[in-house]
């Protein structure tokens, strides 16, 4: 019987090729979207899945409260290590101090590359369970050792044996390769750990770190832990939450809370709002999950609608079958088989589509997803997915078609009743509601990105490059390099700064100034700059003056930004002093405010600008050179010259640079990705809906052939007929718009609230979406409507 079902289903599909193409094509598109989204979600939720002990791993986080706002982050002070090791050792299996992910030049013979890695305590490889390819797992014991990832080892040594070889780090000190570990995969928080060096080595080379050993106020370090086997994260957090507050009085006023942030939450739930965990990327997982389900639903609706629209054709078959002994459940099975066959086809097509588009999707979404050919779970869930879709798409037509009474349909008087088309209409409304909501959502995401992009940044980011200067080699070379670069004619101005133009790397507090409110706990962005900073970046001085080499006293001068003036509550800031109020250590000299600069966006373009200080760099703390390129030459010419000059002075270092506007552009990457992806999915959703509409119109036109013929004989024009056929569908789309607009407004308004700097929702966006949907509907419907309207009435009437 089953074989028979399939045979009939196959012939039925074959004999109605147009219908089948629309059905299979639409479903395949819908399934491809769902599959891709499924793979994407799988990739997202398996982030950090590489670590075998991930359920036991956590990072130690700290929340502190300044002026009633609580900030949360991974930065912790060094003495916390001692405190946890001494008082709470039972709670932890491993406890590892770590630096940030920092960049170092690694040099072997004449090969020098710049890579990022961490300085960690020796238990790190054991705790992370790194897969060691060569050498020993316990490779951080020796002070002068380094562990390399497979690809870094290959980049440096090629086919040579790396173990035991000596590398030079930052042209400063030598280390010996003790182990090579498998590259940490792309979807992992430790992906950028391309080398590991001993924590103690970093301390030995950095004076300020040594000094931080007892400083509870210097939150500049990271700590990772593996909790003991018999305890939970919550229990550990409960035990250690007040450890810092109890041990250190000075910082107690900020109410420091120490807690564990479990690895499973790092990636998807990494946002904190006022000390509380508040979601994160998980919202995009949900968002795309919902989009996937909806797109599939749209495709299933097509299937249902086209099947039921053809019901009058199938009605006769149902009647005959019932009259020769078929029972209703036979017919239900038969129609389900048919839908299963269609879905199976569609699935294979979808797999082909996915394979073809996976590369493009990876580019768009910044992922490295590959098709899981060998994954058994994937195929099993695919089968479940096929059955589910077949049931979803096939159940309604199966139940509807099989309910026909043979007497009615065989008499030839069968007419679907007045309300037979109602479910179909509801489904079309549902389809277009989803499509219109998608259109609105996408337009708003795009608009918001544009809105933030058009925000004035406070400096001229075009034609500006930055060169990292972390290596020891740059020490004391600033003035020389500046004159060399300026003489080369590729650069018209140059400065150095302690953090890149598009980031804040340091924050300070502990100042007194005239008119400071009682008990005010300030938090100021801190950037050390050379005197040409303002000029090279093209910032605007709004009050006072710029730094000047003419004034020797400018070495204790500071520029503050507009927001800082408001924030600190200083009237007439020029000439006022900021005094260091740290009494224990020797306080720095007071800083004199000489000027106010226009706010400059350094962090998120969606957030208000942070109050900041630009301090004269006395100690040569530069991390970046900022070079304003000569606008009269092409950028590539300029870069070539700069590279030549650079290599003359630093022949051992790789020449690295970034365009500041590119770096700034990266701040939009996440939103842009979301925007592009939802744009693509919206386009597909509309395409699928239109396919359905197209199919539906052709059936309606066919059904009404006789009516159209009669009308034409009575004198109806082509336009009359066209508008008659289009009107019905336009009505449905209008209803959709009325439903979609409020829903989209509500959802997108909520989304925009996440961004302090956001656009206003304007009516034209909604009007545009509605107009777009209407236009697409009219065009789709017209294809068939005009054809039907032009048909010869004599022909259509004769066939009756």
């Amino acid at each position, binding site marked *: 019987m089953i074989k028979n079902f399939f045979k009939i289903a196959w012939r039925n599909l074959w004999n109605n090729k147009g219908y089948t193409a629309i059905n299979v094509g639409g479903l395949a598109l819908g399934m491809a979207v769902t599959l891709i989204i499924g793979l994407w979600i799988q990739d997202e939720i398996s982030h950090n899945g590489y670590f075998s002990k991930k359920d036991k791993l956590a990072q130690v986080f700290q929340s502190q409260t300044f002026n009633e706002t609580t900030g949360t982050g991974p930065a912790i002070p060094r003495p916390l290590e001692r405190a946890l090791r001494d008082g709470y050792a039972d709670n932890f299996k491993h406890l590892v101090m770590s630096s940030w992910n920092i960049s170092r030049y690694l040099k072997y013979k004449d090969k020098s590359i710049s890579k990022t890695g961490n300085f960690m305590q020796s238990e790190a490889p054991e705790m992370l369970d790194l897969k060691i390819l060569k050498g020993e797992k316990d490779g951080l014991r020796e002070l002068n050792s380094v562990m390399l990832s497979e690809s870094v080892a290959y980049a440096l040594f090629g086919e040579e044996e790396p173990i035991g070889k000596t590398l030079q780090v930052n042209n400063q000190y030598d280390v010996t390769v003790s182990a090579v570990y498998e590259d940490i995969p792309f979807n992992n928080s430790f992906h950028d750990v391309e080398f590991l060096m001993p924590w103690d080595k970093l301390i030995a080379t950095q004076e300020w770190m040594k000094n931080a050993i007892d400083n509870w106020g210097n939150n500049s370090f990271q700590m990772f832990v593996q909790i003991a086997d018999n305890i939970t994260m919550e229990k550990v957090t409960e035990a250690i939450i007040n450890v810092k507050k109890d041990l250190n009085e000075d910082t107690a006023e900020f109410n420091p809370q120490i807690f564990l942030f479990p690895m499973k939450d790092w990636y998807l739930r990494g946002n904190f709002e006022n000390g509380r965990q508040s979601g994160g990327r998980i919202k995009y997982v949900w968002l795309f999950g919902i989009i996937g389900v909806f797109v599939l639903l749209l495709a299933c609706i097509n299937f249902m609608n086209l099947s039921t629209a053809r019901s009058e054709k199938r009605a006769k078959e149902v009647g005959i079958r019932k009259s020769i002994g078929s029972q209703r459940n036979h017919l239900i099975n038969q129609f389900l088989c048919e839908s299963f066959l269609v879905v199976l086809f569609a699935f294979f097509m979808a797999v082909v589509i996915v394979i073809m588009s996976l590369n493009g999707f990876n580019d768009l979404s910044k992922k490295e997803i590959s098709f899981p050919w060998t994954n058994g779970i994937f195929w099993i869930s695919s089968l479940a997915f096929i059955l589910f879709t077949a049931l979803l798409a096939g159940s309604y037509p199966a139940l509807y078609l099989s309910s026909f009474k043979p*007497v009615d349909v065989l008499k030839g008087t069968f007419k679907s009743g007045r309300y037979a088309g109602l479910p179909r209409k509801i489904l079309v409304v549902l389809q277009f509601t989803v499509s219109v909501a998608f259109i609105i959502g996408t337009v708003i995401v795009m608009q918001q990105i544009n809105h933030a992009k058009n925000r004035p940044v406070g400096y001229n980011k075009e034609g500006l490059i930055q060169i990292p200067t972390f290596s020891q080699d740059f020490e004391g070379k600033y003035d020389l390099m500046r004159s060399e670069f300026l003489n080369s004619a590729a650069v018209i101005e140059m400065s150095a700064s302690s953090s890149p133009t598009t980031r804040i790397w340091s924050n300070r507090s502990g100042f007194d100034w005239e008119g400071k409110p009682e008990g005010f706990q300030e938090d100021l962005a801190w950037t050390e700059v050379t005197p040409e900073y303002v000029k090279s970046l093209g910032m605007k001085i709004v009050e006072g003056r710029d730094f000047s080499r003419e004034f020797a006293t400018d070495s204790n001068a500071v520029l503050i930004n507009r927001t800082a003036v408001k924030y600190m509550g200083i009237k007439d800031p020029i000439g006022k002093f900021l005094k260091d109020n740290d009494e224990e250590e020797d306080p720095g000299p007071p800083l004199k405010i000489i000027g106010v600069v226009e706010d400059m966006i350094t962090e998120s373009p969606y957030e208000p600008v942070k109050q900041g200080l630009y301090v004269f760099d006395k100690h040569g703390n530069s991390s970046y050179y900022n070079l304003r390129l000569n606008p009269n030459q092409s950028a590539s010419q300029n870069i070539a010259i700069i590279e030549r000059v650079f290599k003359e002075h630093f022949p051992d270092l790789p020449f690295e640079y970034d365009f500041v506007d590119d770096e700034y552009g990266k701040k939009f990457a996440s939103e842009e990705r979301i925007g592009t992806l939802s744009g693509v999915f919206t386009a597909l959703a509309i395409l699928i809906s239109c396919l359905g509409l197209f199919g539906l119109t052709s059936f309606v036109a066919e059904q009404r052939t006789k009516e159209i013929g009669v009308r034409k004989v009575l004198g109806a024009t082509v336009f009359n007929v066209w508008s008659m056929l289009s009107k019905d569908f336009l009505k449905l789309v209008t209803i959709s718009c009325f439903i979609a607009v409020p829903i989209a407004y509500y959802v997108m308004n909520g989304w925009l609230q996440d961004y302090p700097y956001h656009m206003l929702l304007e009516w034209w966006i909604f009007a545009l979406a509605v107009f777009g949907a209407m236009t697409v509907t009219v065009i789709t419907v017209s294809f068939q409507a005009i054809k039907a309207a032009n048909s010869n009435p004599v022909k259509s009437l004769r066939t009756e």
Partner: protein
Amino acid sequence: MLLKLNNIFKWVNSGGQRVFLLKDINLSVEEGEFISVMGPSGSGKSTLLNVIGMLDNFDEGEYSFLDEPVHTLKEKHRANLYKQYIGFVFQSYHLLDDLTVQENLEMPLLYKKVGSSERKSLVADTLDRFNIVGKKDLFPAQLSGGQQQLVGIARALISSPKLILADEPTGNLNSKQGEEIMELFKQLNSEGVTIIQVTHSEKNATYGSRIINLLDGRKI
């Protein structure tokens, strides 16, 4: 006795009025009879046939088929009864367009859950008996009207029913084809199959052993 109708009424409500399609029909049919039902359009011939064939319900009265009270049977039981004992022949043949002649013949057997080998031999026998072996792989659209009706009858007979219900079986055929079909019915009847046919044609009615005349849902 094959079947017996007692005081069968069937009506529809139209505009607040009860319109009778069948009014007080009493009929008993013995095995081996060949009955022709006649009457003008709208007199209830097809409705009567559908009621007998259990495709349609009635509103009042009693109907027993092989001593089983049809009006009290459950849907499923009724379907089994009718699957086993009744075959239908239609005016417009009603073959399944997507199936070949052979597959059309096989269909009722599939619904009766007849085993594969028995099914094959039954289909082969029937093709042979109706002389349509050469047509077995053709689709209905490739056959003439008479040939299609031949397949229709063959399909009705393949599960060896006791009763054949034919609703104007020659209505769409020319006179020569019609005559052939009627001859076939006569032959089947002589082999013991009970036949009830609805017809407009006096000539076709004479093939039967008994004529029932209907007018406005009443037997006259």
